[in-house]
Each structure stands twice: as structure tokens, then as C-alpha cells.
């Protein structure tokens, strides 16, 4: 936690969506409790729940439990846990998140992932945030964005010239969300890209916090 808070302070980040690594790599119930407890003690941290659908036992109940405690963001880690998106236990959890009016955050780093997510989740009435998109699969993600009005883009690997402007043409400025992957990676480059972009000033403010605040029903990051 100290490393995350230091990265936030060094980069003038007011609030961060935060998820326990314990929930990713060991046990999501323990990890989510750790996340909730940590975030409850620090207003800068916004809790993100995670669920490992391989377990089956207690997965859907965990969604209800977290939602009942004010957690609306759910992040999945199929690469670390070794399961595909086209995986019924995952899709059942997503259905519960949709019922709870939650938001799904998924990695979208590999070619083919966005197309698969479009097929599996594009028709659902829930917001899906595609994370870790880079230049190698940007074309695919742009194509998918035209067909999925509830898909959003996390920006920390959008590092090509005018990537944000191109993303905004398809997704709109309101569906771009700053990410950092801190404390593993440094937030500075992603923030610099937003600030140097030709997005509108309100658009930049949205990417830097307003959009995710609206999406999750948070108080504005500046409050």
C-alpha cells in the first residue's frame, strides 16, 4: 500500500481504484475483505472487488455481498488465473454484476480479446472497461467500440501519437478512463498523454477522473 500511495502522491493522483492482490492470486473473499477494510480507512482509495470464477462456490453470492457494501467495480484477472472469457462461470458472475448495476473491468491486451468480449458482453446492459489495450490491438478495439456503446477504454497503454484522439472519435471522450497499473508501473506517462492530447479541456478532466466518477457514482475526484 505504501508504494501505491507514494505513486499517487508523486503524480498528484487524488483517488485510485484499488484491488487486493491477495484476491487475485489466493482467495477472493479474503482479498475483497482486505480491499474493503483498506479503502474504508482511506478516502483516496476506491474499492474494486475481484472474483475468481474457477472457484464456482460463492462467486455469485460474493457479487451481491460486495454490492451491498457499496462496491460497484469488479475487476477480473483471467490471465493470472488461467481461464478464458468464453467461460460460463465468468458469464454467470457477470450476469449478477449486471443485476447489481456494477461495472466490469477486464484485461484486453491480446489480439482477439476485444472481439470475444464484444460477442460475449457487448449486448449486456452493463458498462465494460477494457484495460491494457495497446497499439498492437488498438485497431480491433476501435472496431469493437463502434458496436458496443457501453464499452469503455482504460488508457495507460495507449501510447501512440494521437491514440487518445482516435479513441475519442470512436468511444467519445466520456468513455475513456485514466489507468496506471500503479504501483507496478508509473502513472506519469499515461497522465502526460492526456494532458498533451487535443481532447477538449472538459474531455481531459473526464478522462482524468470525471468519467470514472460518473460511471461508479462516486463523488467527483476533486471533491
Amino acid at each position: 500500500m505504501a508504494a501505491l500511495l507514494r505513486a499517487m502522491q508523486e503524480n498528484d493522483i487524488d483517488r485510485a481504484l484499488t484491488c487486493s492482490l491477495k484476491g487475485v492470486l489466493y482467495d477472493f473473499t479474503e482479498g475483497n475483505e482486505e480491499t474493503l477494510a483498506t479503502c474504508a480507512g482511506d478516502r483516496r482509495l476506491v474499492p474494486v472487488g475481484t472474483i475468481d470464477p474457477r472457484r464456482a462456490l460463492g462467486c455469485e453470492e460474493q457479487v451481491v455481498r460486495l454490492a451491498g457494501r457499496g462496491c460497484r467495480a469488479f475487476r477480473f484477472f483471467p490471465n493470472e488465473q488461467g481461464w478464458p472469457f468464453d467461460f460460463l462461470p465468468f458469464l454467470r458472475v457477470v450476469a449478477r454484476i449486471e443485476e447489481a448495476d456494477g461495472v466490469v473491468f477486464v484485461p484486453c491486451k491480446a489480439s482477439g480479446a476485444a472481439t470475444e468480449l464484444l460477442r460475449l458482453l457487448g449486448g449486456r446492459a452493463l458498462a465494460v472497461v477494457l484495460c491494457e489495450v495497446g497499439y498492437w490491438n488498438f485497431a480491433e478495439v476501435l472496431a469493437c467500440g463502434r458496436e458496443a456503446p457501453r464499452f469503455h477504454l482504460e488508457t495507460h497503454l495507449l501510447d501512440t501519437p494521437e491514440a487518445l484522439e482516435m479513441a475519442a472519435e470512436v468511444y467519445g471522450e466520456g468513455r475513456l478512463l485514466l489507468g496506471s497499473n500503479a504501483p507496478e508501473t508509473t502513472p506519469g506517462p499515461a497522465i502526460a498523454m492526456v494532458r498533451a492530447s487535443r481532447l477538449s479541456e472538459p474531455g481531459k478532466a473526464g478522462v482524468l477522473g470525471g468519467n470514472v466518477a460518473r460511471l461508479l457514482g462516486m463523488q467527483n475526484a476533486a471533491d
Partner: protein
Amino acid sequence: MRLIDVHGHYGKWPFPIRERDADGLLRLMDEAGIEVCLLSSALAIVYDMREGNRRLAEAIAGRARLRGYVTVNANYLGESCEELDRYLDMEGFVGVKIHPSYQGRSAASAENLGLMEQVAKRGRPLLIHTMGEGAVRETFEVARRFPELSMVLGHGGGDAWELAAREASGVGNVYLEFCASHCEYGKVAEGVRLAGAEKVMFGSDLDLISPHFVKGMYEAAGLSAEARALVYRANAMRLFNLSGE
């Protein structure tokens, strides 16, 4: 401070990146505060060495802020030597570029050693794409074998950047630049600490990667004014014998 960017490209990409001519590159450099950019041809790296070098020469001619690397390829030693002789005496070309991954010949392969011998004879610095522990170890093997050849490790070894930075501190002819999409927390600060500020340069990988992005990574390092002057400008000016504004 106006930056010297030692890792840029001229050409097209198979990704959603708008094509830039030389003037377009200059506009991108202006936006990011880059005074001079050292370019290699994307075409020369991935497909046609000769045509790529030719197009690059045409693009940088008469534009002092754009300098060139001659791209060579260890699979074609004779033709590479011809390219070196054709361009290295031409105004605007300041170094040589190899990309062992695209060319399918690792840094210390017999083919590359033969090529390095030829590059070393010509007395110009080499920018070598270096990603991963194996590549770093091989590249330092080459550096020790040719101490007269100054080498800039493009991407600073990638995920093996700590190894590269430690090694660079003790190998006089090796320099690093750290452009990457994946920006490990503290990489530039720690890389400079390990290698020494006199061994690190600014490289952006434009216009594959936005210079704003990579500059954001370097700026996050919180380098001292003295270190910034070396990393952003002085080291490259000296190594590539550039004259600034």
C-alpha cells in the same frame, strides 16, 4: 530544456498511427520539446534495408533537426557494408542501427559479430534494439569484444533493464535509453542511479510511441538538474557529435 531523442523512426506502422512525413515528425518533436531526433527507417528494419535507407536520406536532407541511422542487416553483410559506405559520410547520418529480433540474428551471433566488426571500423555509434536478459547479455558480450564501438541499447534491455543498467556502469562504450510501452515504476530513476547519468539518454521510439508518453516516464524519475542535462541532451550531443542551437 530542448531534448535530443536518440531513438526515432521514419516510415509507416501496421497500427492505427497516422503517417508522418519529415515535416510531420518535426511538428511532433516541437510539441514534445525535442530539438533533434535520430531516426532509423521502419521500412529498412522490417522489409527493405536499401529502399528504407534511401527514403530516410531523402527525408532528412536539408533538415538539420532530423539525423539518420543507417540500418544494416547481418543477413546481408556485403550489402550492409555498401550501405555504411554510402551513407556514413553523407551529411545528416550520425550512426548505425541494427534490430537483431526483426533480423533473426541475435546480437552475438556469428553473422552479427561479422557485421559489428565492420561497424566498429567505421567509428560511428550503434543503436541496437535490446529486449530481455538474453539480448542484454549478448549485447554486452559484443560491447566488450569491440570496445572502440559505442553502443546505445534501445529500450535499455526491456524487462532486463536493471541488469543492463548495472552492466553499463562498468562498460565504458555502452549507453542506455528506456523507451517502452511498459513503464515499470522507478525504472528511469533507478536506471540512472545504477548506470550513472552519463550513461543514459532520452529515446522515445517516435512515432511508434508518442514522445509525450516516454517523456512522461523520464519526467517521473525526478532527476536532478545536472542529471537531466546529461540524460536529455549532453550525452547524446557528445556521443553523436551534434551541434545544438
